[in-house]
């Protein structure tokens, strides 16, 4: 009847064992983590933690063993990822590399690039960032002006990128640049390059966001040389590749769990003699959370059998972002406060942090408007 399909999917029995392993590990690894640190989930940066996770074999889980991967299933990776997010583990350092850059290199990269980067990523030691957005190109990504010109044995890249998450810590940036122009097709002539951020000509600055923290930044590329084998995929195929990459970026459980920590705190707040108003909100959030998880699992089930789920993933991301964005506001509205603060200081701190962080949930990884455009297309409206 419709163009999307959300058949229920059940994770197999054996993931229970894996869950307990991850939980036991996290219990120890996160002992000293404050509630606000946990509330950062996938924006919390801790390279020590990422290294430990690599030792556990929980980065690059699905990748070939010959590149340092572990050849485990998509479903096992899903379970580890959702456990990390639910616990509020600081996964930012390896997050992008594990979720999209690694798979992108395995799929499109040269053998040299695979050998050079993938094993170190799987160890939790090498970090990637995504160089797509530019000062004058956000939603309209095809309008970028950073460009590469041919030189002996490689390319010279000039331009700049902005809003680049963890750029100040990352080692490599997968960078979308212009390598040609076709007056009739603005999506043609784009290519992806692997840029070593320690190369001469690279300047990076952190940008402080309105939570007062530095998570993203800007990069200036001034005649930066990249060798031929650091071209990712085919020359001129950048647009299709970027879209494949964004699909990886949009389907995971991170798209509805960003405020999950606050929900746990809220349940703590209402533990004794909850009012009907509080029960009501707790129930409404539970229904939404449970549904989003079922939807996300359904997408995972499809991806695990190599089916495409672009429309479904987009639907989950938009619903998930609306949910996690509204959650702090709904909880603030319902909290029983005295002198303007809830009974526990950690609830107050987590709420305050998430109120500030939440506007980004519907921007990063494709804005709400871009996602609804994709859904309209899927419905045949454009």
């Amino acid at each position: 009847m419709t163009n999307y399909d959300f058949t229920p999917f059940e994770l197999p029995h054996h993931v229970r064992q894996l869950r307990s392993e991850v939980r036991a590990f996290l219990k120890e690894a996160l002992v000293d983590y404050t509630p606000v640190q946990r509330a950062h989930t996938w924006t919390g940066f801790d390279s020590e933690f990422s290294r430990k996770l690599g030792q556990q074999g929980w980065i690059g889980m699905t990748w070939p063993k010959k590149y340092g991967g572990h050849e485990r299933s998509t479903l096992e990776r899903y379970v580890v990822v959702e456990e990390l997010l639910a616990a509020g583990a600081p996964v930012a350092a390896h997050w992008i590399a594990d979720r999209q850059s690694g798979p992108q290199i395995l799929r499109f990269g040269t053998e040299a690039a695979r050998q050079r980067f993938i094993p170190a990523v799987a160890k939790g030691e090498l970090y990637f960032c995504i160089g797509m957005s530019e000062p004058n190109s956000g939603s309209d990504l095809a309008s970028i002006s950073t460009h590469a010109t041919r030189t002996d044995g490689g390319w010279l890249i000039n331009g700049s990128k902005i809003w680049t998450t963890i750029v100040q810590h990352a080692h490599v940036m997968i960078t979308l640049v212009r390598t040609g122009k076709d007056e009739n097709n603005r999506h043609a002539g784009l290519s992806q390059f692997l840029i070593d951020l320690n190369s001469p000509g690279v300047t990076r600055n952190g940008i402080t966001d309105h939570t007062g923290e530095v998570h993203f930044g800007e990069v200036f590329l001034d005649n930066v040389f990249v060798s031929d084998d650091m071209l990712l995929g085919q020359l001129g195929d950048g647009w299709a590749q970027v879209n494949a990459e964004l699909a990886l970026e949009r389907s995971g459980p991170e798209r509805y769990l960003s405020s999950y920590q606050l929900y746990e705190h809220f349940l703590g707040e209402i533990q004794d003699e909850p009012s009907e108003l509080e029960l009501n909100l707790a129930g409404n959030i539970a229904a939404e959370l449970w549904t989003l998880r079922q939807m996300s699992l359904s997408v995972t089930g499809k991806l695990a059998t190599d089916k495409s789920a672009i429309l479904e993933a987009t639907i989950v991301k938009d619903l998930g972002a609306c949910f996690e964005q509204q959650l702090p506001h709904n909880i603030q509205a319902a909290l029983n406060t005295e002198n303007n603060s809830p009974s526990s200081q950690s609830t107050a701190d987590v709420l305050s942090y998430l109120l500030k962080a939440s506007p980004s949930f519907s921007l990063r990884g494709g804005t709400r408007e871009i996602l609804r455009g994709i859904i309209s297309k899927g419905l045949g409206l454009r």
Partner: protein
Amino acid sequence: MNEFTDILTTSVDRLFSDLMANGMPETYEKPVFDQLWRAIEDLGISNLLLSEDNGGFGGGWQDGFAIFKQIGFHAIPMPIGETIIAKKLLQDCNMPIPDSAITIGTAHTASIQHDKSSDQILFSGDVPALPWGVAAPTALFHCKSQGECYFALIATSHASTSAQHLNEANESRDSLSFVNAPLIDLKKLDSSSNQVLVAGALLKAAQIAGALEAALQLSVQYVQERKQFGRALSKFQAIQHQIALLAEHAAAASCAANSACHAYDKGDADFEIAAAKLRANRAIGESTSIAHQVHGAIGFTQEHRLHHFTQRLWSWRGEFGNDRHWANYLGQQLVQIGQTNLWKELTNRSDAR
């Protein structure tokens, strides 16, 4: 979906399309009801969840979902889902299974007496909002008497008074009162969880998903046909984004109801069904507002089909538990589970056992 569900869905889709080909039948009239019921029974759909020994298809709740959703998608004004559920619940507790339309409901102020002279069990009580309570020959009630919970199976003709009511979509929601009426059968239940309410909520959640999908389809078609300012409405981004949101709600309701059916097939699913009904309910306000908005005035007419779906949605939101009911239920469950066990419990309930 397995092959059986596929075939079933296709034949039910055809039957339902035929039933509705001449407009919305007025099934609150008993003769119309009886005639339609015979057509439905020719396919044997109401035996969907019965075992093959009991003359059924041996289907599960996920097969049920396929039918329930179609009932919503085609706006079928008959207690098909109710009968499927009643037969399944009756089978599960070894009660006799009547060969008729069976409605389901929860009785208030019930009293149950054993009449020694006639060796009959007599039932007194009021049952509000019974789907086709007057037209359906039999009813299955959940009731409480002296601290015990029961399923009571009764012929609706024994009602001492009956009042016909219609919901917003002209579906029968009748009130029946019984005074010392003989029961066909009575069963004392071990659990206090009202499975008539729970299964009914699941049915409504799936029907809501179907009606939302119908409203979505009508909207998508209409904005492609209707032109203003020299182009199809579908070319305006404001329209596209509203319909995208409607699709998101329809997808969420459908996934929730289907997943809850999946959980019900595995065992206790009170939590999942509560979540699914609540999520489906929450989709209704914004979705119906969007569907009507993009249809303009034509969608506000009696003649246009849109109201068959939107009016059902508004009715169904309140039936078998409105938002407040299920949100409070879930809230209580969550407070019991507690902050530190929440994630454990969520995953434990869903991972394969």
